[in-house]
């Protein structure tokens, strides 16, 4: 392992981590407020989680256990490579089990298993400004946040109802944090919004390209915006997961063949495997927890259902996913 001696612990230099920790502390002190920070170049392109990786790098310690999910799955490219990255530069233990992780970096999902106090959820955020598509001027949106002028956010929801008869926003659904700042919960499905409300875990959001960090401290109120006569509601699925039979979880549609065959399966792979008591799941997890070695070589043949190992379809319909 002499080759990694050239890296500082967790890749970033100590001054940078200090700067990011300051931004994180400020974010925690002002829930939902977007704190600018001097985002660094990371050894990955923008759009692949540079913000989340910098946040994780700044808070991770040698005793932490890291889990990385991408659209709920532990075994997709983004998740595998970020996990491998931290295993290499911080030599931390990694896991796929939600309960065992102390830090969970996520791209667009919150695990189905409720998080507990002491866990930290790090979101990768593409566009931190919820008002961006309504008001393109950054100077103006900052002023709107400062003066709490959030009427415009409801204009978007109004447009949804006028066009579709209901609030058609299904991801990046705007929330109000602790009765003050309107925040973009990153492009998670709105299904996950209620999980943010008064969560015992600390939730941190990092946007690398946009150079913003924000946070929701534990047990903070997170309320999804809505109208009195069109209240907020989450997606429902009319069938359970095709693999584990779970209900009231977020499902991904998996295409099976070219003849319209498809099935709906849990987007949270760890949750699904746990429920099925899948033996490959635990062995896979153990393998992943071993220090060093190339991770992410999980072979599709190791699981009985090949479709599950395919990349689940992305939820961020048409929007640049990050």
């Amino acid at each position, binding site marked *: 392992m002499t080759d990694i001696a050239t890296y500082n612990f967790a890749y970033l230099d100590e001054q940078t981590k200090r700067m990011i920790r300051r931004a994180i502390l400020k974010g925690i002190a002002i829930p939902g407020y977007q704190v600018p920070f001097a985002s660094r170049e990371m050894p990955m392109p923008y759009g692949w989680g540079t913000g989340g990786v910098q946040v994780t790098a700044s808070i991770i310690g040698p005793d932490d256990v890291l889990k990385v999910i991408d659209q709920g799955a532990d075994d997709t490219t983004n998740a595998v490579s970020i996990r491998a990255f931290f295993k290499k530069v911080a030599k931390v233990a990694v896991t796929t089990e939600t309960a065992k992780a102390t830090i969970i970096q996520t791209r667009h999902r919150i695990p189905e298993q409720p998080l507990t106090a002491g866990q930290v959820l790090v979101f990768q955020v593409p566009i931190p400004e919820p008002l961006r598509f*309504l008001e393109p001027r950054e100077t103006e949106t900052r002023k709107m946040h400062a003066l709490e*002028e959030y009427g415009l956010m*409801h*204009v978007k929801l*109004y*447009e949804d109802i*006028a066009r579709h008869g209901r609030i058609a926003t299904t991801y990046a659904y705007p929330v109000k944090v602790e009765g003050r700042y309107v925040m973009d919960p990153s492009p998670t499905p709105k299904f996950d919004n209620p999980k943010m409300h008064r969560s015992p875990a600390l939730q941190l959001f990092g946007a690398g390209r946009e150079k913003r960090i924000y946070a929701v401290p534990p047990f903070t109120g997170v309320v999804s915006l*809505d*109208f009195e006569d*069109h209240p907020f509601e989450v997606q429902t699925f009319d069938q359970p997961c095709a693999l584990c039979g779970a209900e009231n979880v977020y499902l991904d549609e998996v295409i099976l063949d070219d003849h319209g065959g498809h099935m709906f399966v849990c987007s949270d792979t760890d949750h699904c495997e746990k429920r099925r008591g899948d033996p490959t799941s635990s062995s896979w997890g153990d393998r992943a927890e071993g220090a060093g070695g190339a991770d992410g070589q999980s072979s599709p043949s190791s699981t009985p259902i090949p479709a599950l190992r395919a990349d689940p379809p992305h939820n961020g319909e048409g929007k640049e996913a990050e």
Partner: protein
Amino acid sequence: MTDEPLLRVSALSKFYGSRVGCENVTFDLWPGEVLAVVGESGSGKTTLLNCLSTRLLPSSGTASYRMRDGQWRELYRMSEAERRFLMRTDWGFVHQNPADGLRMTVSAGANVGERLMAVGDRHYGRIRATAVDWLSRVEIDEDRIDDEPRAFSGGMRQRLQIARNLVTGPRLVFMDEPTGGLDVSVQARLLDLLRRLVTDLGLAAIVVTHDLAVARLLSQRMMVMKDGRVVESGLTDRVLDDPRAPYTQLLVSSILQV
């Protein structure tokens, strides 16, 4: 009309470096009164309007506004939050170019409803009903409510802009050349509409225009500006029928007779 004015402007000046925007403008505006500011381009009308609507800060002078609770407030000492709140509740601003005052990418209904949502209305059905009502008041068909203003003609856009401004029941509306760029028949209908709304709602308005006919139709009182100064002011009919200042006489005699 009450005994107290709505707006008191005293010795207002705005300089752009050494150049004069407007200088030493003093007047009172009463509730329900329409004041026209006329003059050639570059005479400082728009600068004055922007100062009054707090879009620009003047170099010197004061302006006080009587709030709904009867309190007098000095406009340029209010915090930005208060000014912006005033701007979207008790005031309106009708731009010459509707694209400046509308959100071109959201529907007409949302354009009208935005101010309601900004002051805290969170009931979709009610917001929509109000939008429908206001669209009919400005003679826009109800079935255009979900269309974007981009699909509207110039006259319709201007009427939509007026509806968007009046929906919160403001007491004072600023208008910058509200009929500019419209053809005469559309202009005539818009003026009819404005006159009716202003009378029905008891609005006070400050209308900047270079069109003396618009001023005559809409306003009770008039200020004539030249090179940033007010050269003459008085009742509209008096100023137009019996102009005293040489510049006003020139202005009035320059109207084309058809």
